[in-house]
């Protein structure tokens, strides 16, 4: 029963959000870009004409043609199929790492902002530390040590990317907890847990959604960069992997543009889609940034 009503509430929230959101043209464009790639990832077997593993010994590093729309790579695989299937891992990493990052970040932001004091001081120092130390370097090092399964890469990216969310959520909580209704609930004897999760959290969801989108774009970028540098499983078919082989095999320096250009364009488009969504959500909830 409770689950049913909270699901209903969730869809009501989304509907209300959509009513304001749909007027933001850049935001809607971003949403369409992301949906486009989700469709491609789901329909990959129907869109691509070859299996991504299939090699053709008679066609090494061939430029685009009618048989191979995006040309072939150094082992004769069809690059169009590789790029289509590559969308799957990039999206998977983007969404799951963002979920981990936003979950940790929101929790730390809520606790830190609500309780304040020494706990806040300690948590914020840790947050600053992760903001300052370049995450990509830590990711490369931890990733190259832990071993390179996809799961490890997702966890590493998630665990190292929560600090921006924590900062923003904390600053919101600081102002929300001063609102009279919070005080009223306290006076009525509401527990800390109840106040945090039932009364403060719902007021921060807007910021959390915006950070979700921005975290996803960061995760996709970090994953591509890690795989490109050779950390992470280079056997997992992703756009970063295609770029890795294009660079490491020397195809790039011999001028095979069809190998190197498309995966980058897809990464840029997908990241751009998430960034547009994130910025639009931020703009919606920050009146100072909203166009008058």
């Amino acid at each position, binding site marked *: 029963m409770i689950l049913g009503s909270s699901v209903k509430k969730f869809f009501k929230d989304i509907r209300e959000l959509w009513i304001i959101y749909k007027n933001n043209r850049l935001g809607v464009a971003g949403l369409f870009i992301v949906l486009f790639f989700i469709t491609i990832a789901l329909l990959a077997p129907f869109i691509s004409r070859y299996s991504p593993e299939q090699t053709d010994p008679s066609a090494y590093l061939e430029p685009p043609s009618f048989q191979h729309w995006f040309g072939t790579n150094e082992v004769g695989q069809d690059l169009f199929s590789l790029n289509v299937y590559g969308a799957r891992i990039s999206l998977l990493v983007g969404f799951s790492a963002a979920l981990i990052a936003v979950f940790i970040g929101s929790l730390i932001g809520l606790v830190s902002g609500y309780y304040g004091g020494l706990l806040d001081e300690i948590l914020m120092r840790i947050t600053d*530390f992760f903001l*300052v130390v370049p995450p990509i370097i830590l990711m490369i090092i931890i990733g190259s040590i832990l071993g390179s399964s996809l799961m490890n890469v997702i966890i590493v990216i998630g665990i190292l990317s929560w600090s921006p969310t924590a900062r923003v959520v904390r600053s919101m909580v600081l102002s929300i907890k001063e609102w009279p209704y919070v005080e009223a609930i306290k006076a009525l004897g509401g527990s800390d847990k109840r106040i945090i999760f039932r009364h403060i959290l719902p007021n921060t969801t807007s910021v959390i959604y915006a950070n979700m989108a921005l975290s996803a774009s960061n995760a996709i970028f970090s994953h591509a960069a890690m795989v490109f540098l050779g950390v992470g499983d280079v056997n997992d078919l992703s756009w970063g992997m295609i770029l890795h082989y294009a*660079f490491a095999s020397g195809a790039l320096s011999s001028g095979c543009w069809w190998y190197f250009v498309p995966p980058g364009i897809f990464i840029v488009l997908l990241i751009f889609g998430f960034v547009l969504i994130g910025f639009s959500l931020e703009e919606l909830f920050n009146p100072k940034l909203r166009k008058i």
Partner: protein
Amino acid sequence: MSSRYSRYVVRRFLGAIIAVFAILTINFFIFRILPGNPIELLFRNPRLTDEQIRALEAQFGLDKPLIDQYFIYLINVFQGNLGLSFFYRQPVTSVLMPRMINSLILVLPSTLAAIALGIVAGLISAWRRGSKTDVSILLIGMSLYSLPTFWLGGIFILLSIYYLHLPVSGMLTYGAVYSSWTDLLIDFLRHFILPFITLTLVMFGEFMIIMRNTLIDVLTEDYVTVAIAKGLSQTKILRDYALRNAMLPTISIIAINLGLVVAGAVLTETVFSWPGVGRLIYDAILNRDYPILQGAFLFITISVVIANLIADLLYGLLDPRVRYG
């Protein structure tokens, strides 16, 4: 100097020292949680004799408990001893030092150029908010922000192969003999230009968006509205009112985003084989050269902490609320 400012300085210094210790501790434990024997990892060098291995064991205290190892590690680090590279068969410090200088040669000019360009574009964009100019600058900024550094670098390599005919690898032509200093300089600049543009463009996107949002906050303040109402000229409002007040948040946000500079540098150096710390990291990943990875991580993170400390102190000097509180 008020006592408030000295207290601020002490706090920042303490923060930086704690951060350095946190980095050292992380660095120590990351490489100890590895499966397998740390001796194998730290000194996996087939040419080491048994005698050498025993000497290294004693130096790093690997026969002692973990906590002793930790203190021995700290002492070693402060003496500049970061172990031996598997691949280069040299102390990590002497491999890192020249690479660090090469990195700075690339990173410093690009960062300054990106900040300068970012300020100008952000200013124009914020002043003309909502106009076509603003939207196009914002779109350019967001696109550059979304560009993976290594891909942009690769595109420049392709352009160079087909059109520009610039060198795309290294700092100088390998094995070249120069007849004069100008020849050397020209050769260096030809190698420098593409990585420089790549790194500048990538950072420009980020800095421009930061600058625009900060300026919009400032431009909606009451004193700017008053300045406009008084009929002050556009240049005066922007220079004396908006920019001056936007400087402080910009400095602190740029300091926080220094990690971005490092990430950009690692990827740019990799793509263009620029012999800096970034390329060193890439090679170390390929060669599984853990001591180098560990040393490079330490170098980079500590430089970022120091750069942040400098930015914080500068912030305190510039902000009268901190100076005379």
